[in-house]
């Protein structure tokens, strides 16, 4: 049982609301900035449990986020920006599932819904 902090990374207008939830916000304006903030936050010393990051700034640093997937902490979670979801998060899970199962099992389901 350990206590962890939470943080949100993204464009200021998207993540401002997280303040009301008691989550730290780290507004960034570019992907480069997002990458450096993320690098700082994933340090185990910082004790972040969950890091929310908006899809728009996460797009370019997806590899880095995927690499973090192997560790239990912190958990990096993609959230939609205020422009609405772009589906990167779904896409990411689809890829993970495809790699593990060896087949695309999600597409079929989503295809039927459309």
């Amino acid at each position, binding site marked *: 049982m350990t206590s962890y902090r939470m943080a949100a990374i993204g464009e200021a207008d998207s993540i401002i609301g997280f303040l*009301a939830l008691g989550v730290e916000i780290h507004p960034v304006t570019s992907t480069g900035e997002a990458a450096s903030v993320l690098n700082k936050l994933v340090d185990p010393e910082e004790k972040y449990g969950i890091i929310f990051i908006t899809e728009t700034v996460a797009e370019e640093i997806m590899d880095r986020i995927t690499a973090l997937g192997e560790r239990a902490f912190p958990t990096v979670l993609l959230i939609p920006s205020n422009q609405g979801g772009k589906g990167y998060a779904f896409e990411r899970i689809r890829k993970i599932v495809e790699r593990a199962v060896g087949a695309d099992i999600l597409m079929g389901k989503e295809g039927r819904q459309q």
Partner: protein
Amino acid sequence: MNLQVNPTRMELLRLKKRLRVAVRGHKLLKDKLDELMKNFLELVEENRRLRTEVEEGLTRAFRGFAMARAVLSWSYLETALGAHRERRGVTAKPVRRMNMEIPHFLLDEEEPNIYPYGLAETTGDLDEAVRRLHAVFKPLVQLAEVEKTVELMAGEIERTRRRVNALEHVLIPQLEEQARYITMKLEENERGNLVRLMKVKEIVGHG
């Protein structure tokens, strides 16, 4: 295939023992893989459900904040939302499941008043947005947990499958091949010995 083994009975016994262990390990790992897969598919389904719910909720809440932003300045909003708010943390307990360490998140106690600002100076849009965001927070944290589990489990499935395949397609056939080689070599020696004995008997008989 590597056949560099001593064709002796000792070696044959040793190989057969190794083969038994390998077959048993293969069966166990295969069972583990099946179980992992079953859990995994359920989790993926749950992840999809939660993700849809969360994205919908967040998008709607964000729209509200955008409306508030249109009327209120950034610094004002920042103070209103964050000023008197204590940082809320999550407590995480690692749970061991199928040989993996999986985080289980529990949100810290919530403050009873979800609106951190005075109601007089802010708009109804903002209240609505804050309320929506609060409603989606729990599923959001749950989603974080589920998604992480899916990710960790995917890695474990991949590793387990690689092991199962290595046993099934490399180690077990190799051991079988070596055992067969030794059996045949021993039989051949036996035949050689028999012929030699017959020859000796013939020579002795003539003399």
